[in-house]
């Protein structure tokens, strides 16, 4: 059965198409624009308006980024914290979620409450800083991965998923003589792959994008700097010297702060932009089970 289309329906379809086009344009424009500037000659960017396509192609901006000692070191630290931090987070959060979701665990209620409280009450910036300092976590790499390893929110997402696994699996394994550790490793965890993928994505993106901890805890230690913090420092310089374009024109170099920042931004964006579309189905389910509590 085919429906007849009235004038209202056609107007609605037109509206939809226009809306989608505008939406996609507005979302993509800043990224495409940055990409175009990053491949455009720095000097040329000042004199020509760059929108979608570079005017004078060059890869010098990227060479300049990778030639910078700060960025190379930052890239190593960022990759390291993302890999180590994500693995650690996944292991401890899944163990915690497993413990809390066991029906027979003796301290199930009180231990759950212990972690839920941490979602609503925290010491705040300065007491946390003092504690980290006392633990000798400041001025070290470990401040990036250890303090945030357990997060009640991520734990709850995994727990909600585990609650959906039938108890009979655990019971039959127990009859066969399996202990809780064995059940966790060989029965529950393989079933939790989708939610583990979700948490991996969430935590990896968090680590990749983090910069505040680098500024607060490792300000004096360039060997522990991260990519986002390097970008942030460049951005702050750009904010301060907004009007000094003329000076640059006379300095003779073709690499401007704007063009190098664009290249650095693209370098920082690319890993995430390539990974997230493939993990889409995982984070959609992860968000749904995590957000809607039963």
């Amino acid at each position: 059965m085919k429906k007849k289309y009235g004038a209202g329906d056609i107007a609605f379809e037109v509206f939809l198409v226009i809306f989608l086009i505008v939406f996609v344009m507005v979302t993509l424009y800043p990224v495409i624009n940055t990409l175009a500037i990053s491949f455009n000659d720095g000097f040329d960017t000042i004199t020509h308006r760059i929108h979608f396509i570079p005017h004078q192609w060059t890869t010098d901006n990227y060479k300049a980024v990778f030639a910078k000692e700060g960025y190379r070191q930052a890239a190593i630290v960022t990759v390291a914290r993302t890999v180590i931090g994500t693995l650690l987070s996944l292991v401890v959060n899944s163990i915690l979620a497993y413990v809390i979701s066991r029906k027979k665990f003796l301290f199930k209620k009180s231990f759950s409450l212990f972690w839920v409280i941490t979602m609503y009450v925290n010491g705040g910036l300065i007491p946390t800083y003092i504690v980290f300092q006392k633990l000798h976590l400041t001025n070290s790499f470990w401040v990036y991965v250890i303090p945030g390893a357990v997060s009640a929110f991520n734990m709850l997402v995994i727990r909600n998923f585990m609650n959906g696994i039938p108890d009979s699996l655990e019971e039959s394994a127990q009859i066969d003589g399996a202990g809780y550790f064995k059940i966790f490793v060989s029965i529950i965890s393989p079933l939790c792959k989708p939610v583990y993928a979700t948490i991996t994505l969430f935590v990896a993106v968090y680590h990749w994008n983090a910069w505040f901890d680098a500024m607060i805890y490792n300000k004096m230690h360039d060997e522990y700097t991260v990519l986002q913090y390097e970008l942030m420092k460049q951005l702050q310089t750009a904010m301060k010297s907004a009007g000094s374009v003329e000076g640059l024109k006379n300095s003779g170099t073709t690499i401007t702060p704007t063009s190098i920042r664009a290249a650095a931004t693209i370098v920082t964006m690319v890993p995430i932009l390539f990974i997230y579309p493939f993990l889409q189905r995982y984070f959609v389910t992860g968000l749904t089970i995590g957000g809607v509590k039963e």
Partner: protein
Amino acid sequence: MARNTINSLGTADLRTKKTNKWAEARRQPFLLISSALLLIYGIIFYYVPVLGWITAFQDYKPAKGFLKSQWVGFAKFQKLFENKTFYLAFRNTLAMGVINLVFHFLTAIAFALILNEVRVMFAKKFVQTISYMPHFLSWIIVTAIVRDILSADGIVNEFLMNVCGNKMPIDFFAVKGYFWWIVAAANVWKETGWNAIIYLAAITAIDPALYEAADMDGATRFQKVWYITLPSLRPTIMILLLINIGNVLNAGFELQYILGNDVISDVSKILDVFILDWGISQFDFSLGTAAGIFKSVIALILVCLGNWTAKRTGDERLF
């Protein structure tokens, strides 16, 4: 299975509850050991910093530590409440938080409803994938984008001068009236697609029979959205509102910290920046902590208030 049942019946008859617990404890060494370790971790990284709140009642000197610093009672809070910048920071945080919250809900729900009307699956999937993208970009990158777009030779000024006939580029970061709305727009750009995920998932759960019945009654597309889809989303909207009300004072950080300047600091400074200024730059740890406590307490009150409201109206509760 059968053995298990007999076992539990037997023990219930013969032994007291206490020995039962011991027997259970013997069966779960992994659970007990890992929970003990996690308990220690949680105490160190989540609970000990809360104990650090006592520094707000001291004149804390890092050299003297918690134990030897002088106690000053509520003097730091008094100093805080006499500080004009603190009031401005609190007002700005609250204002930006509320504006963000309102736009978050309006745009996410509207986007989900509109996207749901797209019948071409390929287009829908494509637009949705694009819409998540900004969520994965860091706030540093988004701040850089905002700065570039709104700069004197950015695309917004180009548009205003070429299309709307403005003679001079507007310096968006030098006018107090713009800042909150710039923050709101950046949040909308970054999070709308992401926030819509949960609504789109909720929409797929709506019983198709409702739409079929509406078709029989000759409902228009708009009527179906208004009278079926939107009311079906009510529980989801309520629970998300509840979760987000406690976050109202987390109005972001990077935009305010990096884009805020002396000219607009009256509207751009937020509590977190205030705390950072006092605690880390001026070394008045106690005053910074006091401001942090103030923020935490207000957030907690908001969470409880939201929870209580939801209970009263009969919607889902958070805890």
